[in-house]
């Protein structure tokens, strides 16, 4: 009971802090080990369960790193809510690229890939970087080459019918909203590219200036990592 009261008091104080600072929070007590915790709920709990079961069922044969890799890979395969794995978050060119990181809390060694192209198992490639290099981060096409040549990963198209349709719909809406900002021609707030920085010599008759980020001005349409 005393512990519950402490929790209630703590949450009450935190609620007051939240109102003041617009930070929102939630807290839970100490747990028995092993433990897995991750961002988001819904489809993401499949990753929680997959990682936990690895640690729970085969503790002598698996590590915390293994659990994180398996958990994240589960989300990649399931595409979770579309923000993880192939077939989501297409860029302006309708391509899906992947970012992943894995870190060992014992050694503080880490491995990561950024802008990984045409390989689905991003966390698996990050694990390769961690296990078999002295580096921390590989990027882009050369990360793909590392994954294929060293890890034996297969190159695949990361686009899906859904991601391509999402991208085409965005283009049909004049590429709105987008992440372009500053003085750009043509006006990124109303038109698709290709874009270029505005120069004083450019005619203003056929070139509007886009000074703001259209994502910032349309919060309901904002994307996120």
């Amino acid at each position, binding site marked *: 009971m005393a512990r519950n009261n402490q929790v209630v008091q703590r949450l009450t104080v935190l609620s007051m802090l939240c109102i003041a600072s617009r930070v929102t929070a939630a807290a839970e007590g100490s747990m028995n080990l092993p*433990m897995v915790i991750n961002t988001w709920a819904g489809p993401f709990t499949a990753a929680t369960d997959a990682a936990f079961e690895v640690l729970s069922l085969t503790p002598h044969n698996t590590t915390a790193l293994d659990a994180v890799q398996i958990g994240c890979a589960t989300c990649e395969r399931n595409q979770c809510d579309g923000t993880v794995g192939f077939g989501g978050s297409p860029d302006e060119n309708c391509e899906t690229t992947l970012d992943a990181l894995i870190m060992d809390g014992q050694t503080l060694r880490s491995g990561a890939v950024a802008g990984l192209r045409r390989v689905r198992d991003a966390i698996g490639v990050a694990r390769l970087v961690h296990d078999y290099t002295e580096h921390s981060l590989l990027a882009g096409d050369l990360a793909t080459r590392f994954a294929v040549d060293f890890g034996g990963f297969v190159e695949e198209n990361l686009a899906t019918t859904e991601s391509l349709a999402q991208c085409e719909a965005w283009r049909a809406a004049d590429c709105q909203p987008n992440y372009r900002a500053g003085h750009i021609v043509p006006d990124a707030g109303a038109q698709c590219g290709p874009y270029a920085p505005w120069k004083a010599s450019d005619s203003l008759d056929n070139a509007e200036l886009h000074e703001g980020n259209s994502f910032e001005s349309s919060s309901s349409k904002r994307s996120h*990592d």
Partner: protein
Amino acid sequence: TISMVAIHSDGTMAAGTSSNGATHKVPGRVGDGPIVGSGSYVDSDIGGCGATGDGDIMMRFLPCYQAVENMRRGLSPQEAADDAVSRMIKRYPMAMTGIVVVDNKGQHAGAGSGWTFTYAFRSGDMKEAVTVTVP
């Protein structure tokens, strides 16, 4: 973005993040996911953290590094999470952020801004993952 922290029964910890980034990003853009201390961070001596949100903003603040270091200085997971998020929204009040923070004993907390953030956890003899809503 999924960002995860695992604690083995022997006390060792790991963290990881996987994401396909922001929709309609400029080709070549990389988010906070693969950045150590931003997408996630862990030190088995202290605890770990996972993050999601406006990656272009969050990667400038290394919120997970901040949260773990906050715990190293004696803050609770909740205090550590609140501080890390507060640092971001002080400069970017509209930022959508969410972090989960856990110490090496399994005490955990979440904090966020700009949306209703949720996280999931499973430990001990729990039969399935439990969801926590950060209002």
